[in-house]
Structures are given as structure tokens and as C-alpha cells.
């Protein structure tokens, strides 16, 4: 019982070696793929298209075995064997090679799993050999066995005359294959529809990729024929093109291998496209997070980082300082400050390939806007002198307190002047201003009179009208500054004596050359501020920033400043897809000392000279971080390890496609040797025969390149762009898979190239017969042509 199948294995060793190899590759692929995917909780269906493809591939291989054995089957039937016995005999032979391949594949899978796990899983996770991968391989084997059993039916039913005849005539498509054809087309249409209706249903995407490939593969022979007709069109008078066209148009030999090959290519395109696009996304996200080729945390304040870069790299070619304050995950709480004056030189086009391209280009606009801010008067150490007059009609002694808020050496600082002025008189007072060794910027001037007013006595709270005609602080004449009254209704500044109640409520301010006329608000205090356009901090924003009523941004010191929004972009350097970016120097120029949460940093080019680097390190720069490191952190957070299984699927599918074609190449080669012998008998010249072969192979290659490329493109557009490949972490750029992306085009191009080369190699392999193999004398009995 076992001797016959073993004999069969020996006789048909070529085909069985291929079945063995396919079973081996698939079970290794399934085992390792599921092993890795389950370990990271990734979507297991990623191996689904491979399993479906293998089912088709193995079935066409066993069909080929059955074809070769059809004489044997006829004999069995003539001998009157029972159906059961014939079935056993039909299945035993391929079952041996199949099971052998599966077992060997499992052993290899168990051996390979740890290596793949080490390569793809985040550090610290190791894949353990669980029961699932075994179960998956067993299910696969069972599916193939069931489908093979179905192949016995035609063996038992086929007309005996056909089975015993040495010449095999082309058969009409049976009901089953027509049904399969319709099923595949219908299935792929439904799958594509489903993928669009319900994006993120990954298993639909995976399953449909194989169906779509098969559908394209089934159409491929027509395209090949079209190409054949096209290359032979109008060339009937030349023998070689005519022969090549006839072979392509009329031979049925390439349909099956082409179908499997195209399906394999499509599955590979989707799987490989998925891997590449996720890896590109992680790479881009890493670049964006890094902001520049080199990223260094800095031990010190942002101001120190700024000083350090300016000292170590005075020309601003290599390094720029920055700071981040990430309070929480809301974009408005993620603030990044960069020294924009050096951005162009240090970062340049580093982010041009990423989602932060526009954002990165906008940094230059941010720099211009920041540098174009109106100059604010700079106060130095000295005296603050005030002369205040109170209006005559005021009924009591005005008890005044002035507070000058400024930012200087000690950060936010304040100076007081307290002064009591009777109605109709004026008084002068002066205090020392300190903490402005470097320079000070005036933030605001508070004017307070009397006591705070309680709600009940509100109507009794009249406030005096003050005239400040001499206000000088640290060399700045404050009467000539453009002040606005904080919280006042617009127009309040110019309000006359017949001011409305509302105006009295919020106070008034008149700017008259040489003096300021202020009436504090009824509650007792008013604040004079520089106008918003002087204070505003220009920012770029990324993501859905919730600005509230008016755009406002905090400095590294945590001071609120009005924000001037230069633009909103998909992503910004360092900030990612959610956050705001401001110029560091501008933000620091009027800021309290940086809050503890502020992380100073330095961005640098990767060709930064060693001496600059060591100067920065000496000043407090930490170890350089490269974009790759950021990428792998982001990858780990996004769980991209499961996607890497796509490599297994892509490689295994392509190999299965190629191996399946090999089965047919053996047959095509035999047929070709005979045809070649006939042509030699007819004295068709060698160059003509060679030209016909070349034309045929190139046409096939061209057609299969077109089909593969089109099917891959279609599958990627229709399916991959609808898949949810990873969970994008907060504030990371979205994983978009536009069809124009280099990753997808690379995947399609690689797979198309691989398949086309395979067709060319396979074609020439099938066409390349030894001279004596194709000698006319070999055309004898038993090798009947056709």
C-alpha cells in the first residue's frame, strides 16, 4: 500500500519537491507569523491571504500531479477498483509530500521563531511556542486535504477515453471552475466594498487582497493574449512574431501559473506595502520628534542652552537651542520653543519627507514674524520717578499706589510707589529700580487708589482723575508709550468727562502727548499694559489646539502671553502632530525663569564638528539621540511589531507563487522541446526560432508586469489604504497611506520587478532546451505532438 505512493514520489519527484517546498514554506510562515503576531496581540488575519494563496497553489500543484497520473487512474478504473480505493490511491501520493513539508516546516518554524521575535518584538518580549501556531498549521493542512479530496471527483468521473489518450485536448471550463471564477470575483467586489464601508476591518482587507489577486490573475491570460495580438499585429509576414503571437494567443499553458503568480504578487504588494508604510511612518514620526538629525537634552535652563549654543557655535551653523514644556497630552499644553534664527541652517530640509514638511517650512515665517515684532523699550537700572496730579473736583485725599511690573535679571519683578495727593495738587516721588543689569522689559503699570470697593457702597466709590505728566523709569519715558487699559471697553481711552457708567466702571485712560490721564476703575485698580501687538508671541500650531476666547500661549516661565497665530500645520518639529511652536529667544525675552517642567534641549546637524560637540557637552548637553531611537520608541508605543509579520507573508507568498510556476515550467518545457524539434524538421532557421522565443517571453513579461503592477496598485488603493495598521499614539502624525507615498510605490515596484524577472527567467528556462533534446529525431511514438 505504501510502496505505490513512494514509487510515485520518485517518478514525479520534481512536482513533489515543489509541493514539499510550498508546504514547508507555508507552515514555517504561518507558524512564525502567528507566533509573533499573537505575542504582541497584533491582528492574526495578517497571515490569512498567505493561507488562501497556498490553498490555490497547492491545489494547482496536486492537479498537475493528477494530470500526470491520469493514465494510472484510467488503469485503476479499468481494473474495477472501488471509488474508495481509487480515492485513497489518488490522495496518498501528494499527501506524503504535503505532510512531509508541513512537519519539516513546523520544525523550522519552532527553530526560527526566537530569531524573528528578537528582530521584531520590542525588547523584553520573547515569543514562546504556544498551541496557536500549531493549530493554525493543522487547520491549514486540513483545508488543503479537504480541497484535494474534492479533486478526486473529476478523476472518477472523467470520460475514460480522455483519461487514457496520450494527447490531452483542451477542456471546456467545468461548472466548478466557473463557479470558482464567479465566487472569486464576487468575493473581491464584496471585500473591497466592505473595506470602504467599514475601514479598520483588517481581516476583510487581508482576505480580500488574495481574492483580488486571484481575480486579477484570472483576467491575466486575457491581457496576455491582448499583448500577444498586439505584438503580432500586422507582422504576419514575418515568421518569428507570427509564431510568438500564435503561441501566446492559443496556448493555454500559462494561465494557471500566471494566475497564482499574480495572486501571490498582489498579496505581497499589500503585505509588503503595509510593512513599508508603517516603517516609513515610524521613521518619519521619529524624525519629527527628533526635530533634527541630532537631539540632545540639556541640563540647564533654556536660556543657558541658548547661551551655550551661541558660545559653542557662534555662526549658527551646527546647533540650535530649544525647550519643551509638555504639561499634558492636549496640543495647547505641549509647547516647543526653538531658536528659529538658526533653524534653516541646522534643520533645513531634514523634515521635507515627513508630515512636518509644511510645518518645518513655516518656521522661517515664524522667525520673520518674531524678528519683526515692534521694539519694546528697554529699561536699565536707575530711578523711577512719578509726578501725579489729582483733579480739583475730587473730594478727598487720593491714596495712590503704583506698581511697575517688569522682567529683568531676577525674572518677573516689581517696583512700588505709594503717594498721597490732595485734590487739585500734584506730588512727585521716586524709587530705585534694580535687577536690570542686563535689561528689563516693562510688563505693566498698575494704578490703585483708595480701598477696594465693596458691592454695597459701590456708588460711593468715586475715583480721582489722575494726570501723570512726568513718568520716567530707568531711562524710559513712560508717557510716550502706547498704553492700553487692561479689560477696558475699546474706545474707553478717548472717553470724555460725560463718560457713561460702564466707562466709570472700568476706568479710563487718555494718552496725550507728554502726559497720561488715568481714572482707575471703580473697584479701585486699573492696569496699563503695552498694546497686544507689542506683547504677542508669534506661534505655529499643530493639531486641534483649543485656544479658548483669545489665543494665548505661555512662555517657558509659565507667563501667559497673547499668541499671534502664524499658521496651523499637520505637524511641527519636536511637537509632532499636536502642540505649539514659538521662537525661543522671543519667548525668553519677556519670561519668568523657566518652570521646572521645561526641558532645555539642543538640536544639531549630524555633521557637527567634534569640537563644537564637545563644547556643547561640556556646557551641559546630554548624550545625542538619533531619529531611529525616537522611531523605535514610537513603534513600540504603536505596537508595530505585529505589522512586521507582513514580511513573512510577502516573502512566503512570492516564493509560493514562484514555486507553483516551476511546476508548470517543467511541462511547458517538454511541450516546447517538441515544438522546437518540429520547427527544426521544417528547417525554420535558428535565428527565427530564437527571435520567436524572445518575443514570446518579453511579451509575457510585459503583460505580467502590467497585470502585477495594476493588481498591486488596485489592491493597495482599494484595501491597504483602508486598513488600520497601527494604533497611532497621541500627538503622533496620522498614519496615512496615500498611494503616492514612496513606501507603497516601492512595494509595488519591488514586487512587480520580482515577478517580471521571475517570468523572464521562467520563460527562458522553459524555452531553453538543449540542442539534442529538441532534435527532430526525438519526435517518435509516445511523444505525440500535439
Amino acid at each position, binding site marked *: 500500500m505504501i510502496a505505490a505512493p513512494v514509487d510515485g514520489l520518485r517518478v514525479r519527484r520534481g512536482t513533489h519537491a515543489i509541493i514539499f517546498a510550498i508546504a514547508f514554506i507555508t507552515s514555517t510562515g504561518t507558524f512564525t507569523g502567528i507566533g509573533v503576531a499573537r505575542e504582541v496581540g497584533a491582528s492574526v488575519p495578517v497571515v490569512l491571504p498567505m493561507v488562501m494563496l497556498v490553498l490555490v497553489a497547492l491545489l494547482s500543484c496536486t492537479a498537475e500531479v493528477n494530470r500526470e497520473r491520469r493514465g494510472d487512474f484510467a488503469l485503476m478504473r479499468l481494473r474495477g477498483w472501488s471509488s474508495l480505493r481509487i480515492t485513497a490511491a489518488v490522495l496518498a501520493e501528494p499527501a506524503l509530500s504535503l505532510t512531509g513539508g508541513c512537519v519539516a516546516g513546523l520544525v523550522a518554524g519552532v527553530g526560527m521563531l526566537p530569531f524573528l521575535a528578537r528582530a521584531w518584538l520590542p525588547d523584553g518580549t520573547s515569543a514562546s511556542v504556544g498551541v496557536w501556531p500549531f493549530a493554525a498549521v493543522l487547520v491549514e493542512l486540513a483545508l488543503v486535504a479537504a480541497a484535494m479530496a474534492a479533486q478526486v471527483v473529476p478523476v472518477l468521473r472523467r470520460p475514460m477515453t480522455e483519461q487514457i489518450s496520450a494527447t490531452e*485536448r*483542451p477542456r471546456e471550463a467545468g461548472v466548478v471552475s466557473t463557479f470558482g471564477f464567479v465566487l472569486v470575483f464576487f468575493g473581491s467586489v464584496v471585500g473591497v466594498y466592505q473595506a470602504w464601508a467599514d475601514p479598520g476591518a483588517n481581516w476583510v482587507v487581508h482576505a480580500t487582497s488574495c481574492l483580488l489577486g486571484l481575480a486579477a490573475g484570472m483576467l491575466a491570460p486575457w491581457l496576455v493574449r491582448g499583448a500577444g495580438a498586439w505584438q503580432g499585429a500586422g507582422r*504576419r*509576414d514575418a*515568421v518569428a512574431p*507570427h*509564431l510568438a503571437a*500564435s*503561441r501566446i*494567443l*492559443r*496556448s493555454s499553458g500559462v494561465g494557471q501559473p500566471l494566475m497564482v503568480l499574480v495572486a501571490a504578487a498582489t498579496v505581497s504588494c499589500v503585505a509588503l506595502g503595509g510593512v513599508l508604510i508603517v516603517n516609513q511612518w515610524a521613521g518619519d514620526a521619529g524624525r519629527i520628534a527628533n526635530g533634527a538629525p541630532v537631539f540632545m537634552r540639556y541640563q540647564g535652563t533654556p536660556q543657558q542652552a541658548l547661551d551655550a549654543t551661541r558660545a559653542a557655535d557662534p555662526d549658527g551653523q551646527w546647533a540650535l537651542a530649544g525647550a519643551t514644556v509638555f504639561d499634558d497630552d492636549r496640543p495647547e499644553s505641549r509647547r516647543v520653543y526653538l531658536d528659529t534664527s538658526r533653524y534653516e541652517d541646522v534643520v533645513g530640509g531634514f523634515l521635507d519627507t515627513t508630515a512636518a514638511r509644511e510645518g518645518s517650512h513655516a518656521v522661517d515665517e515664524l522667525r520673520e514674524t518674531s524678528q519683526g515684532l515692534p521694539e519694546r523699550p528697554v529699561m536699565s537700572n536707575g530711578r523711577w520717578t512719578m509726578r501725579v496730579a489729582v483733579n480739583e473736583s475730587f473730594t478727598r485725599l487720593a491714596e495712590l499706589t503704583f506698581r511697575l511690573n517688569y522682567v529683568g535679571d531676577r525674572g518677573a519683578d516689581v517696583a512700588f510707589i505709594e503717594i498721597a495727593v490732595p485734590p487739585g495738587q500734584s506730588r512727585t516721588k521716586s524709587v530705585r529700580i534694580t535687577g536690570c543689569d542686563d535689561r528689563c522689559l516693562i510688563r505693566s503699570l498698575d494704578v490703585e487708589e483708595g480701598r477696594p470697593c465693596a458691592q454695597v457702597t459701590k456708588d460711593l466709590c468715586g475715583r480721582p482723575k489722575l494726570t501723570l505728566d512726568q513718568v520716567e523709569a530707568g531711562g524710559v519715558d513712560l508717557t510716550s508709550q502706547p498704553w492700553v487699559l487692561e479689560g477696558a471697553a475699546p474706545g474707553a481711552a478717548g472717553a470724555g468727562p460725560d463718560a457713561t457708567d460702564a466707562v466709570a466702571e472700568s476706568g479710563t485712560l487718555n494718552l496725550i502727548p507728554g502726559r497720561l490721564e488715568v481714572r482707575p476703575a471703580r473697584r479701585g485698580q486699573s492696569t496699563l499694559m503695552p498694546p497686544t501687538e507689542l506683547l504677542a508671541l508669534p506661534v505655529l500650531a499643530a493639531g486641534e489646539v483649543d485656544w479658548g476666547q483669545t489665543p494665548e500661549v505661555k512662555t517657558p516661565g509659565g507667563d501667559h502671553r497673547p499668541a499671534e497665530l502664524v499658521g496651523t500645520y499637520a505637524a511641527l518639529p519636536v511637537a509632532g502632530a499636536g502642540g505649539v511652536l514659538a521662537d525661543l529667544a522671543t519667548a525668553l525675552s519677556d519670561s519668568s525663569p523657566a518652570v521646572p517642567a521645561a526641558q532645555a534641549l539642543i538640536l544639531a546637524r549630524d555633521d557637527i564638528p567634534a569640537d563644537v560637540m564637545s563644547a556643547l557637552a561640556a556646557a551641559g548637553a546630554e548624550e545625542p539621540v538619533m531619529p531611529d531611537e525616537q522611531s523605535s520608541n514610537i513603534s513600540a508605543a504603536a505596537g508595530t511589531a505585529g505589522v512586521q509579520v507582513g514580511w513573512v507573508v510577502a516573502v512566503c507568498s512570492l516564493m509560493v507563487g514562484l514555486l507553483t510556476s516551476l511546476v508548470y515550467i517543467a511541462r511547458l518545457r517538454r*511541450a516546447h522541446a*517538441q*515544438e522546437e*524539434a*518540429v*520547427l*527544426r*524538421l*521544417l*528547417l*525554420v*532557421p535558428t535565428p*527565427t526560432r530564437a527571435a520567436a522565443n524572445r518575443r514570446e517571453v518579453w511579451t509575457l513579461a510585459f503583460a505580467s508586469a502590467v497585470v502585477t503592477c495594476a493588481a498591486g496598485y488596485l489592491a493597495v488603493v482599494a484595501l491597504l489604504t483602508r486598513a488600520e495598521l497601527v494604533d497611532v499614539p497621541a500627538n503622533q502624525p496620522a498614519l496615512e497611506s496615500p498611494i503616492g507615498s514612496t513606501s507603497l510605490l516601492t512595494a509595488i515596484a519591488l514586487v512587480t520587478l520580482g515577478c517580471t524577472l521571475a517570468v523572464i527567467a521562467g520563460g527562458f528556462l522553459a524555452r531553453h532546451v538543449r*540542442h*539534442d533534446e529538441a*532534435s*527532430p*529525431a526525438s*519526435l*517518435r*511514438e509516445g*511523444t*505525440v*505532438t*500535439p
Partner: protein
Amino acid sequence: MNAQNAGASSISSNTLTMEGVGLDVHGVMLLDDVSMRFEAGRMTAVSGPSGSGKTTLLSVAGGLLKPTRGTASLGSTLTWQGTGDPPPQVAFVLQVYGLVPVLSARENVALALRARGVSLDEAEEHADEALGRFDLTHVGARQVEELSGGQMQRVALSRALVVQAPVVLADEPTSELDEGNRDRVLSELRREADLGRTVVIATHDPVIVQACDVHHALDEGRVTTFEETLAATRQARGTLP
């Protein structure tokens, strides 16, 4: 149409001679000391039981196989050209037909002419003519895969005759044919012989043997009988179409 008439000028140069031909394949003597002359203008039958070496003999005679001993020559030149391809003066009708499956019947016939440099239009015209000789005009456009065995055999005959080669080697050309068609084939081959061509037919059909002028019988690679059936044939010819 020059190439195809090569060698037709001189009758004696169309005589195919085998002298002491022996063929040894893997130590088995397929042909053993075979000497024969196939003369121009005559129809020669080579008969023998299955496996006796008829196909092998025609292959050696037509230059497809190199004899291990002795020579096969056409006129004064050896038919073995060193490549296994036949010389242009020889046209074969193979026992296995040897048709190109992806071509139609007409294209198969025309291909033999086009391989010899005949233009497409001329080749197709002659191909139709040749198919007509075997009553195949109606299947000319069909792909040969779709033809019956007998039809394929007649396509192979049309293809051999269309090139008008001085030597025609036909290996069991009537094995699949009914009587009517067999007679038709015989008369067509006779016409070729009458045009001065050398016609050799391998067969085990006594009717064919009788229709030929000369008869060689083979057994296990050796010549067992040689007879001139000329007289008998001349009589018989009156009854043949």
C-alpha cells in the same frame, strides 16, 4: 520557389543510398548492416513488424540520426549534416505527425514554405492547394489541436508535399486513414514519384506494399527481404485512381 527545388535538376542526385548502415544505441543494435537504395521516380515501401526499426531507418536515411556505422547519402552528399536537422532536399511525414499545436492546419503547412523563404501570400496559396489535395480545405483555419487523428495525419502529408522536396520520407502515413483516404494518399504519393521524386513509405499495410515499386522488409533492424513489385504495381496502377 527556388530553395525547395534544390537538387531536383539531376535524377541520380536524388537517389538515397544506405550502405552498411548500423545504429547502436546504448549497446542495442537498432539497425544492423542495412544497405538500400531509394531511387528517384520510384515509390519504395519499407515494411516490418512493430519495433523492427522502420522509423529508425527513415530517421537515418533522412539525416536525423547519425549512423554508427556505414553511410546514408543523397547523391554524393551525406544526409547527416552534423546537427540532427534534415537536409533541405528531404521532407518528412512523421509517424507522430509533428504538427505545431498552436497553429492552424493552413499555418502548419504554410510554415514549411515560409521557413524556406517563401512569402506569406504565396505560402498560404500553396498551402491551401496542398490541403485540397487531401480534401482538407474546410479545416484549414482550425487549430490542429481540434482535428481528428486522421485529419492531422493528412495535414502532415500536405506539409511534406507542399515544399516539393526531391525526397519524401513518409512514416506510416495511412495508419489512421479509411480506405478512401488511403487510396487518395497513395495516388498523391505516386504523383510525386512520377514527378521524379524519391518516395519512401514505412508501413505494415500489405496494400501499400503492393502499391509500391520496390519493397524492403525489416526485422529486428536487419533487411530480410528485397523485392521489386514493379510489375505487380504496374498492373495494379490501372485500377488505382
